[in-house]
């Protein structure tokens, strides 16, 4: 048991932090509800931060740490699937990666765009294809989610079959989403804490009222444990750990998002405040892989048969 970061992990996170610093605050963004940056994406690829899992001394925990860190940015980056799932399928698959469950290919897909790799995971195996323009239907223009999203109109005739175990890919997918949720939860909490510590009513900061303090403290407890369960699941490679990590993350997201907007009052309804950039990613993640119930069933099966 060694829960402190090792020297390599500290260094990688310091590098990521330095690289991400210019993207740490949200520019005013009334045009669309999701923020993306090609420049940030390119810098991450160029510096190999999405490939750390395959580096022997770094591995899946470091990849999960990178994903967690990047999710804290107001910008949505397709890091989770690329860093934690792609190396298990084919490290050369073109990004972004869109993971979709077999039989649910009509779902809203994050980061779907021409050139993206769609990976269909299910009982019959793991297959991928490159999304072309005619396979993509845009979502509503002012969709509320803070990820770029679109729909598949269908599947191409030709797909590439990958010789990997779909169960293992689903496991890694859960870890990836849990790590992403951990970062989103952390950043959303920080953002709310800052606001309610500054905003005064009745002559004192909102954060001095116990009605908020206790709910925020509970949010800290679950946010902290989402982080730890995600890291443990990344480390162990255990199926039950992964299912519990995503279950706990989806529970946490459901628990805190409403409160966070509530605590910001009218500001929480505006695009002026960046809170939605985290919460409206979290909300979409609560639907990932069938949501809490599906993670619960998967965990129960793995734990108790």
């Amino acid at each position, binding site marked *: *048991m060694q829960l402190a970061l090792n020297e390599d992990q500290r260094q990688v996170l310091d590098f990521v932090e330095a690289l991400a610093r210019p993207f740490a605050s949200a520019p005013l963004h009334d045009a669309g509800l999701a923020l993306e940056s090609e420049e940030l994406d390119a810098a991450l690829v160029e510096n190999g931060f999405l490939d750390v899992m395959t580096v022997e001394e770094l591995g899946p925990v470091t990849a999960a740490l990178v994903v967690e860190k990047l999710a804290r940015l107001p910008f949505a980056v397709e890091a989770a699937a690329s860093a934690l799932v792609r190396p298990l399928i084919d490290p050369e698959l073109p990004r972004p990666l869109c993971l979709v469950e077999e039989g649910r290919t009509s779902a809203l897909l994050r980061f779907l765009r021409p050139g993206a790799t769609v990976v269909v995971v299910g009982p019959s195996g793991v297959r991928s294809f490159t999304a072309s323009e005619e396979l993509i239907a845009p979502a509503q223009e002012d969709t509320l989610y803070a990820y770029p999203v679109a729909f598949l109109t269908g599947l191409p005739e030709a797909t590439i079959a990958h010789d990997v175990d779909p169960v293992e890919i689903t496991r890694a997918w859960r870890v990836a989403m849990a790590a992403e949720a951990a970062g989103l939860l952390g950043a959303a909490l920080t953002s709310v804490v800052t606001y309610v510590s500054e905003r005064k009513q009745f002559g004192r900061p909102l954060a001095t009222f116990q009605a908020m303090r206790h709910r925020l403290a509970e949010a800290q407890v679950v946010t902290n444990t989402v982080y730890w369960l995600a890291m443990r699941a990344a480390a162990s490679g255990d199926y039950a750990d992964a299912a519990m990590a995503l279950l706990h993350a989806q529970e946490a997201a459901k628990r805190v998002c409403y409160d966070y907007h509530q605590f910001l009052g009218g500001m929480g309804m505006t695009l002026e405040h960046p809170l939605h950039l985290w919460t409206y990613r979290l909300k979409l993640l609560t639907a990932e892989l069938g949501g809490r119930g599906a993670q619960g069933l998967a965990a129960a099966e793995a734990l108790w048969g």
Partner: protein
Amino acid sequence: MQFEWTEEQDAFRRRIRDFLQANLPGDWEKFSEHGPASPALTAFARTFCVKLAEVGLLFPHWTQEMGGEGLGPWEQQILSEEMWIAGEPRGGQYMNVNWIGPTLEKYGTPEQKARYLEPITRGESLWCQGFSEPDAGSDLASLRTRAVLKDGNYVINGQKIWTSYAGLADTCFLLTRTSDDRKKGITIVLVPMDTPGITVRQIPSLIGEGDIHEVFFDDVNVPETARFGEEGQAWEIVAYSLRNERLGIPRFTLARAALDRAVMMLKQRGDFTREYVRIEAARCAALCEAAGTANYAVVQKRVDGLAIGAESSSARYATVMAERAVCEFVVEFLPEALAGASPYLKMHHQRGIVAGVAAGSAEIQLNIIASDVLELPREPR
């Protein structure tokens, strides 16, 4: 960052399990339904802890200077986990080895160490913790039990409540007021429980017979040398002790073991096929594991020699969430467990429902998290 136990740690855990296997009676599970502070379990612990001491498993985590093996915080954690899952056969003596001993070592006078440490290391002494009072619960600093220094003796008058183990304890780690200066006016006195003027009354409770008590002090006289630390130093010493205490009981492991037991019973009668039961069980398991990792993160800080701060309150609250979830799961899906069908689950329930009340209420933990982890501006006083 890695989450595996070392081979040595696994071996240490096996050593404890083997010892428990060999030294717990066949009807132990039924027996452990007696609370950890019950007369029956206390009496059992007095022999059991002597045996633990003989094989070096009573305080192996203590430093070698203190007579331990210097094994460190992870081994203390493993020891606590195995004991607590087994129903805590050490009874109240777990407190001795978790915090009373180390606190005596850090703050005690040579005479106090000589008098109290040795019985602890032999597995022969039982302590109680005289903290809460009828009007000083969460607001502990408002306590009023007076200790007045007179002719070289402290004369103590007042009342304590919720005191575990008081009925059978040898010594009380007692918080008293020596001046009106709120936190700075509180002083610790180590009081032998057979001192004239002490009356102990049991409080019938949900958490097992003989578990909690009222303790009355009427002109109780102890020599000045019974003072522990300086006058007014109690708050500092207690803060040090409680940081150990909050980690002390690995409740999440028993909660997880109880959950596994409940699932086993549900499977046996064919009730673990319903999806909502399975989902709820998984949610409970995730909460137990979540609490475990949060606690381990705090243990890591101890291992690294770092000061433990408010994150221990966060870990504690995670534990409270897990305990609550498992207690509710059992009542909802296996109500008969608390009515005789499972002594183990009843034992867990009775210990689990205290998690949010003992060692600082859950709300106090949330206050600490808000102020010291989130660093929110403080509430006006």
